């Protein structure tokens, strides 16, 4: 029983910490202000191998695992969530479905570039009419000869409109099952396919240096061989993708919580009021103690979920609990960090202001807090209404 990091995990964590501190922190504020995608920083993350962390070396990966990815996400998000979500979505939504469900040919075609960070992948699931209710998918794909013809709209799709976006995996209704339910499949759509329109970037509250778009598909034709995984398994495959993604979001949330602690402790030392640093006030000390407690507990929660996943145990409930706890803790820590910073916390140039803006989405993306509570309750086998 040991939840502390091995030497290799610790070396990775320390490397990403150094990168986040030296490269991301000084530059990201300006990108965020301009709502600009930080191509150079993402390229450097690619050269460090971050996009290949959980993939085998034969596909250009680093031969690590999903927990290694989580450690990198935590350290990036300590400094900035935009680059962290770019990595999270690129790996766990863009590349992972191809690695897990793709044919050998699809893996050879896409993974090396996705692992190196030269290319980003996106996952198009959410539609204007439904997020958590994934079964309500309206986008359709009809097999016409040896091509899929796709029609529909996807929204809030991360990494889908950058200059280096190479593919978007979309879920679409491809028929109906014998029991009348929709048959949903995943299909790879290369960026730039005629009929695919990428809308301008959304104006978002947070994550402003990340790329989020609405996509429309009008008679988009791709080869039949672009089907990802078995036909009709699109929804089931996607659920597995989401279970893992929740651990990643929990790690990212933990980073944001810790970043709030880091910034607030610094500020509590420096900021003078009534003749002493505000950190000498018990009101501030107690806030900081609670914030550290939340960051620490968050870390244990996602380590536990990741550990169960890596050993092949069931982890659905633990992933939901980690995601729920860590995201709510992050929102609380961001609010408290802003409070400690006073008026400066409301100024965009202070990192905590960015963290405050970036925190709320954590309770929404990859399954809302309400969905997590549903999952946790369902796991206890409670009676149904």
């Amino acid at each position: 029983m040991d939840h502390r990091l091995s030497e290799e995990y610790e070396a990775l964590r320390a490397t990403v910490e150094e990168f986040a501190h030296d490269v991301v922190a000084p530059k990201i504020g300006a990108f965020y202000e301009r709502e600009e995608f930080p191509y150079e920083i993402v390229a450097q993350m690619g050269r460090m191998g971050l996009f290949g962390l959980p993939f085998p070396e034969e596909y250009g990966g680093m031969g690590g695992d999903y927990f290694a990815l989580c450690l990198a996400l935590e350290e990036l998000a300590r400094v900035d969530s935009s680059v962290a979500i770019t990595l999270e979505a690129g790996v766990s939504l863009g590349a992972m479905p191809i690695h897990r469900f793709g044919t050998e040919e699809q893996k050879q075609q896409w993974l090396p570039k996705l692992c190196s960070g030269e290319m980003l992948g996106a996952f198009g699931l959410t539609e204007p009419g439904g997020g958590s209710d994934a079964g309500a998918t309206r986008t359709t794909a009809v097999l016409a000869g040896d091509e899929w013809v796709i029609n529909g709209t996807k929204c809030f799709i991360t990494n889908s409109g950058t200059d280096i976006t190479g593919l978007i995996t979309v879920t679409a209704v491809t028929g109906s099952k014998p029991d009348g339910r929709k048959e949903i499949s995943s299909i790879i759509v290369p960026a730039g396919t005629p009929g695919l329109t990428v809308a301008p970037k959304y104006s978002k509250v947070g994550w402003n240096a990340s790329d989020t778009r609405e996509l429309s598909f009008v008679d988009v034709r791709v080869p039949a061989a672009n089907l990802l995984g078995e036909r009709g398994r699109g929804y089931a495959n996607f659920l597995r993708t989401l279970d893992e993604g929740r651990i990643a979001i929990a790690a990212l949330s933990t980073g944001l919580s810790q970043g709030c602690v880091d910034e607030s402790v610094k500020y509590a030392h420096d900021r003078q009021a009534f003749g002493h640093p505000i950190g000498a006030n018990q009101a501030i000390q107690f806030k900081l103690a609670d914030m550290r407690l939340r960051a620490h507990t968050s870390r244990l929660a996602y380590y536990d979920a990741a550990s169960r996943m890596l050993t092949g145990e069931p982890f659905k409930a633990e992933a939901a609990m980690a995601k729920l706890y860590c995201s709510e803790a992050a929102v609380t820590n961001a609010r408290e960090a802003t409070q400690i910073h006073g008026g400066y916390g409301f100024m965009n140039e202070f990192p905590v202001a960015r963290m405050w803006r970036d925190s709320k989405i954590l309770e929404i993306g990859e399954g809302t807090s309400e969905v997590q509570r549903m999952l946790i309750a369902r796991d206890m086998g409670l009676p149904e209404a």
Partner: protein
Amino acid sequence: MKIVVCVKQVPDTEAEKRLLPDTLTVDRESSNPVLNEMDEFAIEEALKLTEAHGGEVVVLTMGPDGADAAVRKALSMGAHSGILLSDPALAGSDAVATSYAIAQALGTTEYDLVILGSEASDARTSLVPAMLAERLGLPQLTFASKVEIDGTSITVNRLTDYGHDVVQAQLPAVVSVVEKINEPRYPSFKGIMAAKKKPVAALDVAAAGIDAALVGQAAAATTVVDAAQRPPRSAGVKVTDEGDGGVKLAEFLSAQKFI
């Protein structure tokens, strides 16, 4: 081509550093030990040279127990093997003794080129590279901001106050590099995993053929007699502009001999 990069483990550059009151040597316990930043540029340059010309990179460090972390970091960046020179007799060695010890340790391996960072962030003397070249009887090309190798000839841009000199020598040679030279890579996870399996040879003074009487604090040519805490930063001078602000500013700068 075989390149040896000499690295040093130093107290964290960003941490407050102090001297131990009894020995007046650096308190290594009070801050995290890290790989000297300038040495990362030396490692990067060695890796780039071997990537271009073939060959291998050996990392050599002299330091206390635990200094192997600096070697591991270099190995995770891509260096091929390491040498750790560690012995209680070496503790407190000054630059003269250090250059001797490293020269002896280098005698245990073959090399075409030795690269060092131009200074360590703890002592900042920049003495060891030049002394090492003298010890080895090799050409020294210090403060390099660019290195080119053509066959057995090496050319570097040597940074000066007014620009740079272009200096050339025949290999083997000793080069020290400055931060301008490149952008060190971050270790990848693959590199971190691979570093575990790379060989690191351990040397003590006997194995390196070092005369213990010539190293360590007792043999140091210089002694730190006294040390005092840096005085707290003074408040500075406030100039209130009453129409003569420019003149007062000029007077201040003149008094400080800036103008």
